[in-house]
């Protein structure tokens, strides 16, 4: 006797014939790869001879910016004694509670649902009413993320100020006079700040903050600045997924580039 496809339920049951599973698989690979790399990079800030793998001359990895290295940090268990732990909670929290990422990981990791019109397990569903209520703190992470845009933009500018005396053996900039210069790493860091800016300023919580919470009326007369801002943020928000993914990949590549320079694996090309 054939099954009744209308009433049949169960994890992954669907009549869809397209490759709906590709999207969640892509996210699992991408997010998994990013988390593994970020964790590894955060836990390995130093080389075997004490070299700094988080910086190379004027370049500072976004995973370690702004750089803090207080004494008390080294009293923590070895796994936690990394300056990155003081930084990564903020962008991690911002991305973890971001509306776009929520969609991606609810689908790919929690399979809730794994795809549209694809069956899921029938565990008691509470949505974002109980445990996931913490997602509502997204706007607070957004406030911190806005600060990070300023900090990383400054890092991009600082990456144009080269030490005239060269780079020390531990990869830090030598003391003394500085001069203007641009390397490939400078461009990578500036692009990183730009992409993170596009992602953060296109965030749904920021859109709500600048004008989404208003019921527009006579916008030109009463709220011209907020309305104009809302329109700009809305434009960014329409491509929030692209900004989110590209900025995430780029921030990882920025760290990797600086790390490879610091390890001596690649040589930074000075443009001028």
């Amino acid at each position, binding site marked *: 006797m054939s099954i009744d496809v209308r009433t049949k339920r169960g994890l992954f049951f669907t009549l869809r014939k*397209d490759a709906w599973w590709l999207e969640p698989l892509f996210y699992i690979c991408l997010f998994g790869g990013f988390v593994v790399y970020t964790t590894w990079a955060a836990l390995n800030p130093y080389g075997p001879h004490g070299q700094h793998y988080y910086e190379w001359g004027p370049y500072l990895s976004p995973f370690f910016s702004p750089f803090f290295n207080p004494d008390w940090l080294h009293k923590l268990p070895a796994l936690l004694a990394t300056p990155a732990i003081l930084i990564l909670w903020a962008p991690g929290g911002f991305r973890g509670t971001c509306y776009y990422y929520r*969609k991606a990981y609810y689908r790919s990791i929690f399979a809730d*649902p794994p795809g549209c019109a694809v069956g899921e397990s029938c565990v008691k569903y509470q949505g974002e009413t109980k445990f*996931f*209520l913490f997602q509502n703190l997204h706007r607070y992470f957004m406030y911190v993320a806005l600060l990070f845009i300023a900090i990383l933009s400054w890092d991009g500018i600082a990456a144009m100020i080269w030490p005239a005396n060269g780079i020390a053996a531990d990869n830090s900039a030598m003391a003394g006079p500085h001069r203007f210069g641009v390397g490939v790493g400078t461009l990578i860091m500036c692009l990183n700040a730009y992409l993170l800016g596009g992602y953060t300023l296109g965030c749904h919580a920021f859109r709500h903050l600048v004008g989404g919470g208003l019921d*527009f009326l006579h916008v*030109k007369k009463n709220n011209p600045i907020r309305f104009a801002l809302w329109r700009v943020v809305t434009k960014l928000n329409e491509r929030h997924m692209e900004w989110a993914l590209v900025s995430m990949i780029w921030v990882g590549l920025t760290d990797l580039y600086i790390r490879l320079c610091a390890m001596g694996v690649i040589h930074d090309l000075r443009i001028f």
Partner: protein
Amino acid sequence: MSKVHMRVYRGNSEGGQLKDYDVDVEEGMVVLDVIHKIQATQSSDLACRWNCKAGKCGSCSAEVNGKPRLMCMTRMNTFQAGETVTVTPMKTFPLLKDLATDVSWNYEVNKRIPPFTPREGADWHWEQEDADRVQEFRKCIECFLCQNTCHVLRDHDQMGQFAGPRFFVRIASLEMHPLDGLDRTEILKNEHGLGFCNITKCCTEVCPEDIHITDNAIIPLKERVVDKYYDPLRLLWHKVFGK
């Protein structure tokens, strides 16, 4: 003319199964045409709901190869030659017969939404820019494909405490209306279960009117609920300084 193999769900509230049909398809036909052809030539008792055949009445909602679609807007030439096309009714709603479902639950939910209530002393002279934002929501044709694909209703049967994306769109059109004076955030949270939505965007993906349901209606409403109930600093501010 080419032949296509169709599998169409036949049944009623007690159950049913897929039945096979071979149909001659002509250029320009949509799935609804094929269903009508089956009605005309092979099974005159095949039930389906339709009206405009132009993607504007929202009557012919069904699932084509497992995807929630309007049958009248799904062209037959989008399928591979020789591909079997499966047509089933919307899964979320009770079945009446074959492809026709009972969507009356939606109208009951609609009745529980406080209607447009103009604010006191409202200035009725307004500009297009004031109206632009809520006009998107007025495009809804009530096909209920978003309700059908929403996993909160489809897989978790939360009809008792969750209104569904269609009605979040309606509430957004009222909440963001420049002349409306009513605050619906409390009923959004407590009666219509906005918190159950985990914004997986399937409603947006299936909307034939391309309404950005999640980004422009549900998330802004969630942010308004956060303003009122979950933002500790804002709550403290209100406590200390009043409104």
